[in-house]
Each structure stands twice: as structure tokens, then as C-alpha cells.
């Protein structure tokens, strides 16, 4: 019969046996079971991260134009040079969300910058000044029209929103003051922190293994 460490596992009818001299796999781990919870919690929390996001971040404009209520959200908060998650809610006068509109958003710098403060990972990405279609499929909230809008310069600039819908057309120019872009080291800190953390854990692991080995040798002798 395979021993599983805690004899209760088999139910109350199984006769309790003396613990084996050599610890079996399960007994090796059943004892520290209580310590498994924080690992489980940490794992689930880590898995949960990255998913909870609110479309659009903060409201940067809310206006009624030609009978259309436009609410524009933008993230990050505060806005900074780099890709901005911009989403638009279009509602009619009664507050009903309009889902068949064509929405375009664009960014224009107030002062043409000689050299941009932020560059995309590759210049092939659509980062030229112009209008970008905002689509409902780009948003988690399917009532919103969303797009990633590259903001290439810090300082004063403008986000423009153009809406065409059966209920009418509307345009909105929203002045913004974008902060400088995040330094790459800050923007990608989790990936830069990953090797040192892994090395630290490995160092602890090696130290613990070294301490454990003589103990095990003693146990077996």
C-alpha cells in the first residue's frame, strides 16, 4: 500500500501506521501545506494582474455637439507622450448609446516639433499625423469607440474627434498638455526586474539546498 504521509487521507478506518523512516513524496510536502496558501494567492494575484483595465481611463472631454453627446476618455492619466488609449462614447439626446457611427480621432501638435519626444518601436507603425479610425472592436466596452493614438510630443497639443452618425455629425477639438514620455527603463521595469528577481530566488534556493543537504544526509544516516 502506498503511504501518503497523513493517514487520515484514507479515512478513519485505515489503521494508523508508524511513519516510514524514509519520507515519501507526499509526506515531504504535506507538512508544509499551510505554507502553500500565500504561494497560491500570489500566483492567482499575478495571473489576475494585467487584465483589470477600465476603457479609456479618465474623461478628458464631455460635450454636446449637434445633438450628440460625446464623452472622450483617455489613458494614461495624466496623458504623456507615447501611445494613448483614447475612447469615445457617442450618445443621442436621450442618452442612448449610438453604435453605428463612424468615429475618427487624431492628434496634432500645437508647435511642430523638430524632433519628437517619443518614437514608436518601429517607424512603420501608423504614427504620422492624421486621423485614426476608432472602432468598437478595439474597446473592451463595446459601447465605446476606441483606438491607440500615438502622441509624439510632450507639451500642448490637441486631440480631435470626428463623429458621423445617422443622427448627425460632430467634431470636437480637445486641448491637452501631455507630460514627457516615460523613460524606457521605467516603462519596461517589470521585464528588467525579472532577471535580478530570478537570480535572487535562485541564490536563495541554492543556499537553502546547501543547508538542507547535510541535514538530509544526517537524517538518512
Amino acid at each position: 500500500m502506498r503511504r501518503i504521509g497523513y493517514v487520515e487521507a484514507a479515512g478513519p478506518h485505515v489503521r494508523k501506521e508508524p511513519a516510514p523512516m524514509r519520507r515519501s513524496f507526499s509526506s515531504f510536502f504535506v507538512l508544509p501545506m499551510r505554507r502553500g496558501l500565500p504561494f497560491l494567492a500570489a500566483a492567482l494575484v499575478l495571473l489576475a494582474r494585467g487584465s483589470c483595465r477600465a476603457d479609456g481611463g479618465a474623461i478628458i472631454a464631455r460635450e454636446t455637439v449637434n445633438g450628440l453627446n460625446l464623452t472622450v476618455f483617455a489613458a494614461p492619466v495624466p496623458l504623456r507622450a507615447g501611445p494613448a488609449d483614447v475612447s469615445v462614447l457617442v450618445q443621442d439626446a436621450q442618452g442612448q448609446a449610438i453604435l453605428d457611427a463612424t468615429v475618427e480621432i487624431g492628434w496634432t501638435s500645437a508647435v511642430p516639433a523638430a524632433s519628437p519626444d517619443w518614437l514608436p518601436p518601429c517607424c512603420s507603425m501608423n504614427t504620422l499625423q492624421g486621423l485614426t479610425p476608432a472602432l468598437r472592436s478595439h474597446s473592451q466596452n463595446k459601447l465605446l469607440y476606441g483606438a491607440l493614438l500615438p502622441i509624439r510630443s510632450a507639451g500642448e497639443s490637441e486631440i480631435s474627434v470626428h463623429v458621423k452618425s445617422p443622427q448627425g455629425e460632430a467634431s470636437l477639438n480637445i486641448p491637452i498638455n501631455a507630460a514627457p514620455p516615460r523613460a524606457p527603463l521605467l516603462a519596461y521595469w517589470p521585464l528588467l526586474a525579472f532577471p535580478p528577481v530570478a537570480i535572487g530566488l535562485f541564490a536563495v534556493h541554492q543556499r537553502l539546498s546547501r543547508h538542507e543537504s547535510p541535514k538530509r544526509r544526517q537524517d538518512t544516516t
Partner: protein
Amino acid sequence: MSPEQAALLSWTFEPVPALGLLATALVYLCGWSKLHRQVPLRFPVWRLACFLGGLAAIYVSLASPLDAFASFLLIAHMVQHLLLTMIAPPLILLGAPQLPLLVGLPRRFVSQALGPFLHWPLLKAVLHRLMHPALCWALFILSNLLWHIPALYDLALRSPFWHEVEHAFFLGTAFLFWWHVVQPWPSRPYWPRWATIPYLLLADLQNTILASFLSFYDRVLYATYESAPRLLNLSPLEDQNGAGAVMWVPGSVAFLIPAGAIAIQFLSPKRRYVHAAPPPPIRPSRPTTRPPFDLFRLPVVGPVLRWKPFRRVLQVVLFALAAVIVVDGLLGPQISPINLAGVLPWTHWRAFTVIALLAVGNLFCMACPFTFVRDLGRKFLPARWSWPQPLRSKWIAVALLAVYLWAYEAFDLWDHPAATAGIILGYFLAALLIDGFFRDASFCKFVCPVGQFHFVQSLASPFEIKVREPDICARCRTFDCIKGNAVQRGCELKLFQPRKQGNMDCTFCLDCVKACPHDNVGLIAVVPGRDLVTDLPRSSVGRYARRPDLAALALLLTFGAFANAAGMVQPVLNWLAEIAPAGDLPVVTLLAVGVLVVLPALTAGTAAVVSSALGGGPRKENLCRFAMALAPLGFGMWLAHFVFHFFTAALTPIPVFHRAAREIGLVTGEPVWTVPSWAFYDLPALELLLLDLGLLLTLYVCWRIARQLAPVRTFRVFFPWGLLAAGLFAVGVWIIFQPMEMRGTLMH
């Protein structure tokens, strides 16, 4: 589509949590099924249902419309938080997840990787204090109260990062709180069971106070909801009051049900099992030694890979592609972004081969078009001489690789389609002549720079052509895998399967697989980099410690990875333009010699000298073994570099093929040169991840080698090489953060 339908479709797919939760579920399922077989009473089906239900509750709270509408409706946000704090944690804990998760993980990983942590005294002490019921209760209540303070709540609504932090707090403290209520087996209670009743009732009291405040307060607490557009016919205050009711009623029920159940359990007489039927005996577990994963055993992939003409088909396809590239390179327009010779070899072929190396192994050599031509040529050429003994090393290939890396920068090979075509033709000719006159695969083994690149990078690949059962080989007397037989030639690279180790010099030609009469050679999963750790004598390769030519090859390819990528970033190009305005050949040559020869020799030589001096041992062995260990880091850099080009220019061959086809009259119409890019804003994150993995594998291999060379002074032996790897990694990070030239594309 109505707004209601659109709202209900507002689900999102976030790969990290979705795949992570799925992986957790699979690990649990695997462990549970084993335990269910052995102790069905302890692990009944309802535990599995509870655990999976808990994971599903987490996913629903994070990916469903609840999350999409959390910043519009406080009610939706409240339901989301209730799922995270009241539903998911108790359900998961009812699944008694600790043992199934540990049993579900690979046994070796649990015993060797997790084991020391689980027995760490410091961790035990910290967790013992953290798990005290009073502290768990206080943390849960504190988290609940703090995150409902308007400033913090609005912060979480504005910022995705703080929203994640808020959810992490809710989930983490809820696990701590519910642990003492559920008491998942085999944990032992801190307090008597009856104490759980006041534990729950006091928590409910706090919940009631907070919920009643939200329900009856006559002003809107959270500014975000006050300014949010109204999607339902609910005013912000009505929404807030409704959220309070949700918190109050279902929240209280979640506390009161377990309190009632525990009270009933506590007051009931103890159950006696005297007359109960005996439980089934514990069943022995299945034998745990499973054969390793073999790609040839997969249902569809295996037969296709082992289909005899499969390699020939691949070779013919690549040969046809090479022929098209050569013709277009020589006769087509000499503008690289619109010529197949400017696009396919430098961007796509290189990317596909490194991705194949990462996913499987040396698939390019398997499909090599040069060996196809060589095989054709051997029908007319003698192929009977032996490759000269003094040349039986990698030094020729090292020199050719260095020349190639220099020529690439010095003559902008990527920008000259005719030169690219010339190189390919030269390659075909070299393969034909060398293997046409010399026996076996002398070209592949001793000359081919492309082959050497793949041999070295495949040391970090996850698959290996390997013997399945060593015992069968021990009984074999025909040695068909190396000698061949009447219908199938044996290994031309002289790798004797029973003594073969790792992927060095293996072209994945599968000759040994087809020749083996016992069907005992597989394409078997291995731990990446494992071959670098051990240094047993390998068939036809020997010990790495005695192969300075292999060490030089690994160093050249590692430093070459960084030099090749650095040559495309703007600051380096600007600097080059300053010091050599007209592309001065002597300057570029000097730089190439410095970066590809002097720098590796100097840094690796110094590391070997210091490492040997600190830890003892011969310098040559130190240099040879640690130099090989740098290969995974170089592979990480090649991957990061080529993956970048692949994503930015993935679709560029389409209009180029269109142009080429139009020129020979196969199609009409103008090619559309503006093709979308597959690049995404987080592309640098992917590149960094690949570089991270390369660094970690290199450091791990270095550590293992250091332990073998100096079991006592391990760190001293490791340190100089670890420092060198860290330095190269820092250079790689800097390169990734620089704007990179768009070579071979029309993008500027």
C-alpha cells in the same frame, strides 16, 4: 445591435490571466485526478467543481462586462469585487488546492525547485505570523475599508495600475480571511472551530456598516461616477445606493451561510463511523517513469516528419525559393525593398530559422537546399576523398563567419540584391564542390557558416534527435544509425546515436531515424541548454573543454549577435557616419576586427584567467566551457533582433512577389507597396523577454559549470563569467531601446 447586446458582448481576452488560469486549472486537474484515484473520499468530484468554479469566478470578474462597466456603474464594480472577495477564494479553498497543485506539477520541479522554499525556516516563521487568524481578519477588513475611501477608489478607477493593485489586495486578503473559515485539508486550525463564528459575524458587522453607509448616504461619494455618462436610467446616487444594497445583502449572506453551517456542525453530535462501510483501500499510484515527450509519437506531426520523402520535399521547396531569389537578385531591380533577394533572405528566412530553433530545433538544416544540390551532384562526382585531418575543426567556419559578419556591414549586403544572389550561388557551388569530392558531410561539418550558426543556437533548443531506449542500442550489433544499410545511409556527420549528446553538429536530416532497424531514435524533448552543463565525451564532437574551435565559434556568434544588432541602431549609425563619412572600408574593417575578434578574445580571456585564478583549474578548460555557456545569451539577442524585423516587415514580400510575378506576366495590376506592419507598441517587451531568457539560461549554465569545476569556490569561478554575461545583457537592453533601421523595407 442594441446597446444591451453590445454591453453583454463586452468581454475581453487577456492572454496572461486567461492562459494562467487555464494552466492552473490543468495542473489542479492533473493532481486531483491522481489523488482522486488514490483517496477518492478525500478528493471527491465536488472539490474539483469548487476549484474550477472559483477560477471561473475570477475570470468572470476580470474579463466580463462587469470589468468593462466598472468605471461607469458602481453596482457593476461592486459585483466584481464581491466575486473576487466572497465567491472565488472560498470556492478555490474548498477545492483543497495545495496537494493537487503540488502533485499536478512535475515531480522533479516540486522536489528540486519548490522543495527548499517550502522548508525555508524564515519563510515558515513569516507565514506563521501572517497566517494568524486575527491578522488575516484585520487585513481583510482593512483592505475593504481602505479601498472604499473616495480618494483611493477614484485613483483605482483612473489608473489601470492602481486598479490591479486594488484587485490584488482584495483577492490576497480574501484568501487569507477565508482560509480560516474553510480550513482546506490538510491545514490545521489555529483557533478552536467555534471561534470562526464570531470571526465571520464581526466581519459581517463591518460589511453591514459600510454597506449601510453606501446605501443611505445622500451624496455621491466617488467623483468618477458623478462625472461618468449615464448608461442606465440610474442617477449616480441611485447607483451608489444600489451598490450598497448589493454589498449588504449578498455580502452578508456570504458571511452568514458559513457561520450557520459551522454552528450546526459544532452543535451536532459527533458522527460515528463504527457501522459505516469501510472506504475503498488506497490504490497504488501509476508508475511515474514516463517516456519523455517524443515529437515523432504525435498523431499527425510524427508521421509527416518521418515520411521518407518529407525532407526532400522541404529541400525542393527551399531550392525553388532560392532559385527565384537568385534570378530576381541578378535580373530584378537593384533596390533591396522591392527585390526578393533584398527581402526574403535577410528578414524572413533568418527570422523563421531562429523561431524554429526556439520552438523545435535545427529545422533549417533539415530543409537545406544546398545539400539537395550536393546530393544531385554526387550522382556525377566521385565524393571519395576524406576531409584532410588538419582541417577537421571549426576554424574554417569561424573565419568564414567572421568574414560574413564583417562583409554584411562593410558592403551593406542586405542592400545589394545582386550580391545576395551571388552569395547564394557561391554557397551552392561550395557545397557541390566540397561534398562532390569529399566523403560524408564535410561541408556541413567543417565549412558551412550557416550550419555552424544553427548548430550553436540549437544548443538552447527544446528538442534533440536522441535514442529512446539505451538498452536497445546496447544490444544492437549492426550500428545502422551510423553505418547505414542497403536502403538508407547512416549519419554523414558521424554522430553515433548511443554516444551522441546535444544538438551540436546535428542537421536533423533524420538519416539515423530512418536507418535504425529498431525504431529507437526519436525527436525527444530535452531541457534547453542541458548539453552545455555536462561535459561527457560526445560522439564525433568530443568534450567541449577540449574544443577551443567550438569556444571561438560560440564567442563569435555571441558577440556577433550584439554587433549585428548594434550596427542597425541610430546612435551607432550616427557615430559611424561621423568617424567614417563615406563608409570608409578600413575603419569598418578595424571596427569589425575589434568587435568580433579582439573584444571577445580580450573579455573572455580575462574572464577565464580571473576565474581560474580565483577558483583554480586549467584556464583552457575554463575558457572553452564557459564560452559555450554564452551561446544562449547570444541566441536571445539574435531572436530579439530577428523577431523585431519579422514583426515590422512581415507582409513586405507580398508586393515584392506581385512585382516579380507581374514582370514575367503571371499577374497584372500594380503592387500595393504600403502593407500593414505587424509591429505593436509592446514589441520591445517581447524582445526584452527573449533577452532575459537568454541571460538566465546562460547564467544558470555558467553556475552549473562553475559548480563542476570548483565545488567549494563556486561563486568565485562563476563571477567573472556572470559579469561578462551581465555586461552583454546591458548592451542588449540599450540596443533594444534605440530606434532601429528598417532594412529591407520601404519604411523609413
